[in-house]
């Protein structure tokens, strides 16, 4: 196993990928929290998962450990399944209220 104590986040070839994926992840989180359109929220969740994928590949290539790249395949499959279910739910909601605005989903309170 490769010990990674040497990673110093400021002077290391992998750090650009780290910054990039943290920015992507933050964009995804902000999108989920701030946008009100269900489709855009779905895309932002995908952005979060793909930020994680990018970082996995970067770490994996940097350390020469293929475990990370293997994980990426599984995450891609999971993300695809999530999108399929999400869009199905979206369609069944759209049939009922003819909108994808999640602010309209407020029938339950308390």
């Amino acid at each position, binding site marked *: *196993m*490769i*010990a*990674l*104590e040497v*990673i110093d*986040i400021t002077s290391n070839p*992998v750090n650009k990928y*780290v910054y990039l994926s943290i920015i992507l*992840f933050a964009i*995804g*989180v902000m999108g*989920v929290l701030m946008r009100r359109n*269900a489709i855009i*929220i*779905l895309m932002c*969740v995908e952005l*979060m*998962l793909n*930020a*994680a994928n990018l*970082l*996995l590949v970067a*770490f994996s290539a940097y*350390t020469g*450990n293929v*475990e*990370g790249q*293997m*994980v990426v395949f*599984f*995450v891609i499959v*999971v993300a695809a*399944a*999530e999108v399929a*279910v*999400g869009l*199905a*739910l*979206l369609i*069944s*909601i759209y049939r*009922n*209220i003819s909108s994808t605005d*999640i602010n309209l*989903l407020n*029938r*339950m309170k*308390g």
Partner: protein
Amino acid sequence: MLIELMGLRKILIPFTILGLMAILYMNFMHWNEPAESYYNSMYLVNRTTTVFNGILLVFALIIVFLSANFYKDEQNHWSDYLAIYMFAVCGAMLMVGAHHLLMTFIGIEILSVSLYVLAGSNRKKLESNEAGMKYFLMGAFASGILLFGMVLLYGATGTLHYEKLSTFLYSHTTLNIGFLYSGLILILIGFLFKVSAAPFHFWSPDVYQGSPSLVTAFMATVAKIAAIASLYLVLNQVFVPLHHLYDVVLIIVSIATICIGNILAIIQSNFKRMMAYSGISHAGFMLVGILAVDFNHWDLIAYYAAGYGIANLIGFGVAIVVFKSMQNENISAFNGLFFKRPILAVTLTIALLSMASIPPMAGFWGKYYVLSAALSKDLLLLVLIAIVNTVLSVYFYFKVFVAIYARRADNTPIDVSGWYKGFLILLTLVLIAISLMPDMIARCL
């Protein structure tokens, strides 16, 4: 599905039950065996996972029994519903047995994706759609956070395997602290989302209220207990060297969870919403267990989970038939239940007494074990707050008792078949049995 094509819909439920029993049997074949691992040591079978998986399988069996009555009117979709329930149980068992963070993540996702579908499965009803969509958005968000935490952990240590991670954390003192800490915090947030602990609980009341009742029962028992067990195993197998970091977080989160769950449950009039808040406060108690119980005393958490789950399933089992006949999901639907259906009323009373942790019941012993473990760790303030909240919680369970015994009944009859009543009585006897001999059960686990 295949069985349906062959026109054998009648044997679908017995077939599922037989299959689950076979899995239960195979699960308990590992009871006294040494720990064994599968799939390149990504899945571990030992005594702990055997017991937790056994509990989950028993709950799944009960749910399948109840589903025969709950989905009586839509027999065309029996195979779909049962298949999705079975996928969810499979995910829950993967979560518990996982020995690699990727396996944990996949287990969580199998469980959650199945539950998104089930929560939205009543397509005609807007509440159900809304519950499915809310659960999906919150759940996918939480999975994203969890995954990012795992990736940061991978960056700090170079592996995701539980054993390698824990040897790494024990042997290296000069780690990349930033990645490690932020990874741990993000993983904790993801898990706390799934168990609906306090700052991340807001999805649970809406989802519990909107979903079909049987799905709510499934979420309150199988999904919650799988998440608790998985969190417990991850923290105790991997992150023990860092416990000074997450102990504080768990103390604050469990105090907040217990208080918020109990206080907000008091003002609810919808039974399912009330059960959601009561489930939140019980999750808080189980978090106290995760915090305070040593790894070789995991049987206390298993006992708490079993008592909580069976009481919950009896409660929902009664509620399903009552709601179906009364067309109403408020506590007022139980008005005068004792005079209409005394057996249902008594089983519901026993279940809720256990959830309110009145002394001889399983709920009381579960809380007693957890809190005495917390006392031995000098968490006096936490224990005091938990006891005050337990007393408070009696109030909202008694609101249901008042409805059952003191309110006047209307004339709506409640349809319930004989075998369904017999099944509920059987469950109640099981609950009483595990209440009467807590020591013995906790010892033989």
